[in-house]
């Protein structure tokens, strides 16, 4: 048996080809369909768990995000959305220059760790705002260092940044556990609630001010990515390193600068998560949002507006389903969010590739 016939025998009854000339309208129609389907799927899962709850599910989900009688519910959503949006948008510049940074989780965590440590041990005589500023500076510095370590290895020794940044997440998490152990030597090693160096609670949520700052940072990032010289250099670098060199871009400098910027901003996110949203610290406080951010940046094709859309939809899905009373497990929300992303990725796949069946091909050939 020749290799060729073996391949033919083993091959699947279909094959994939890249779609060319797929209209943008059609693409977005498919995506919109996918989003609707994802929300329908969540309702179906809920109905399976508790028959007859299909309609009620959507009412509760809506009320869990946009309850018109209770503004704090919507503020909760905005806070959740803001953090996810920030993470996803900050990931765009590194991704655009094809620096696959999957270490957002750890980069945020070390920022939060430093912010939490400063807030916990700052003398009570210092005014809250001063403590906050020191926390912010410390967090930005820590996260910058954390993201520069793999970057420098990449720039000078060409190490694989995907593995390196991923590994740094585990180090950050263990480092956090160790620091908590040192800071809280007795009892159950629990960091406890911060009483100093915290954001004020506005509209029932200490993260409200962080939402306002997020709006500013987002606008800044948008301009940085789409309008500035830096954004352009990053784009060229991502298209082709040789082209970048040819037009006189210092590849090492741009790589390091971009990662330092995103690192510093991740420090801000860590600061928000610890001093604003949670007012506490733990090794799991980022809760996987660093990875969800990677997914969202990717699904949004590194376009800040598209990213905002998916960060919003994902936040609605997560919060809405977590506040549905029927299956009152937070895992239900995790499942729904997972299904949501699964369907959107499937849409992405089927609008990029075309499936052709082999038996159709034979028929066509024989005609």
């Amino acid at each position: 048996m020749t290799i060729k016939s073996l391949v033919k025998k083993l091959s699947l009854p279909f094959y994939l080809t890249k779609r060319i000339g797929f209209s943008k309208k059609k693409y977005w129609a498919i995506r919109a369909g996918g989003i609707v389907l994802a929300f329908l799927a969540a309702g179906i899962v809920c109905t399976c768990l508790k028959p007859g709850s299909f309609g009620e599910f959507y009412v509760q989900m809506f009320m869990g995000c946009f309850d018109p009688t209770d503004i704090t519910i919507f503020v909760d959503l905005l806070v959740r959305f803001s953090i996810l949006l920030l993470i996803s948008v900050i990931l765009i510049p590194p991704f655009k220059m094809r620096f696959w940074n999957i270490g957002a989780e750890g980069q945020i965590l070390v920022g939060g760790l430093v912010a939490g440590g400063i807030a916990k041990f700052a003398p009570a005589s210092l005014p809250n705002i001063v403590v906050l500023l020191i926390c912010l500076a410390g967090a930005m510095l820590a996260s910058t260092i954390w993201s520069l370590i793999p970057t420098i290895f990449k720039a000078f020794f060409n190490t694989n940044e995907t593995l390196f940044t991923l590994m740094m997440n585990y180090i950050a998490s263990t480092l956090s556990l160790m620091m908590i152990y040192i800071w809280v030597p007795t009892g159950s090693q629990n960091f406890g609630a911060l009483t100093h160096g915290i954001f004020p609670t506005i509209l029932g949520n200490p993260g409200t001010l962080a939402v306002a700052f997020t709006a500013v940072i987002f606008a800044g990032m948008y301009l940085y990515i789409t309008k500035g010289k830096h954004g352009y250099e990053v784009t060229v670098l991502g298209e082709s390193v040789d082209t970048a060199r040819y037009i006189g871009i210092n590849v090492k400098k741009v790589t390091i600068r971009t990662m330092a910027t995103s690192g510093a901003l991740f420090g801000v996110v860590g600061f928000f998560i610890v001093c604003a949203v949670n007012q506490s610290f733990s090794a799991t406080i980022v809760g996987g949002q660093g990875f969800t951010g990677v997914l969202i940046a990717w699904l949004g094709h590194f376009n800040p507006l598209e990213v905002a859309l998916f960060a919003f939809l994902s936040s609605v899905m997560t919060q809405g389903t977590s506040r549905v009373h029927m299956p009152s497990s937070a895992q239900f929300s995790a499942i729904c969010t997972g299904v949501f992303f699964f369907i959107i990725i499937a849409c992405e796949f089927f609008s990029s590739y075309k499936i052709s069946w082999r038996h159709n091909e034979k028929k066509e050939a024989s005609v």
Partner: protein
Amino acid sequence: MKKQTRIISIIAAALSVAATAACTAGVQAKEYVPGTPVKVGLICIHNSDSTYDKNFIDSMGAAVKKLGDRLDGEPIIKTDIPESVDAYNAAKELVKSGCNLIIADSFGHEPFLLRAAKEWPQVTFCHATGTKAKTEGVKNFHNAFASIYEGRYLAGYAAGLKLQEMIDAGSLVAKNYDANQNIKLGYVGAFPYAEVVSGYTAWYLGVKEVVPNVVMDVTFTGEWYTIEGEKAGAATLAEAGAAIISQHADSMGAPGECEKRGIPNITYNIPLADKCPKTYLGYSKIDWAPYYEAVVNAMYDNKAIEGEVNNNWAGTIGTGSVVYDCVDAEHKAALETVKNELIAKTRRVFDCSKFTVKAAKADKSEYSKASYITMDDDGHLTGYLADVDDDGTYVGETEAIAQEGGITFFNESAMRSAPYFDIGIDGINKLN
């Protein structure tokens, strides 16, 4: 591009407007009227796949049957709630659903539950295993625990009886003895916290009561629930020669490994006679139903919670809050005698004459407890300053050694419900 800029400015503007909009509406809790049915909410860190949470959920089921009309329908149970702002949000959801009593089961839920308690003073918040209620002084915030060390002591006693049988039958091998002819025991702990230290020390003292020449190795997994980690911990102890193993962690890891290796095992929270028929000796657990009942009855009858001191409630083996079992029918009577002695207080788990603390007193390391310890010439404790007040100083401030009925003992869980026995006694060796 222009269009995009416009969209972006709209998003940014909408976000800032929403963030700064002056609006005071929020979740309003309704005042509980005594004598009306109580609506209960329970916040769990995992779901019933974890033996720890299953114990809370099952106890709730038992309490529901007993309380009957005093409850407003089935309790709302929120599972898989992490120790983050999600715990606060879960509490908020429960307040919105009209709960008058909200209970959380995990230590790390405490700061978030406390925040909710301050926000909704009309609602009663109970936090199991926590330490803040005594020092915070928030009226509607309570801590609870149970003297599980009594259950572990009894489970250890059962293990001791089994060990004596093994000695008599000559089934121990050279590996089971150390250089001084002491028999080795093993214990898989989650974290080196007071809660765990108190538990394994009680278990060890239980065994030692029957077989005096025992030493124990302890290994920590650094997680509450890790099947692989607990398996590996049990394997390490088995390799080191442990004749009997027990654990304070939530998965099936250690019992499974013991069954595979044929090492007798005492479990926590669940009886495993069906899954580990060869090696299961017995178990101990906290029964939370008496606590749920005490709180609901207190609310319903508009009284203080029975047995509560400084917003702390510690159930005992006498109140039915600590449950244990042992498979060997012949040993049950002996255990029953010991149990009655514990209830009558003629026997104390942490009887200072039964153990020595020479190594802890000589400890020169950074986190040494030596400065809190006073002991007599034989190494028995005569005084110990425990860190009872969770005030952020992490310094021992409360004298924990008491005397009653001619016994000098460490007065565990009396000044605060959560355990504070954190001394490394002689004969127990931490492996990591």
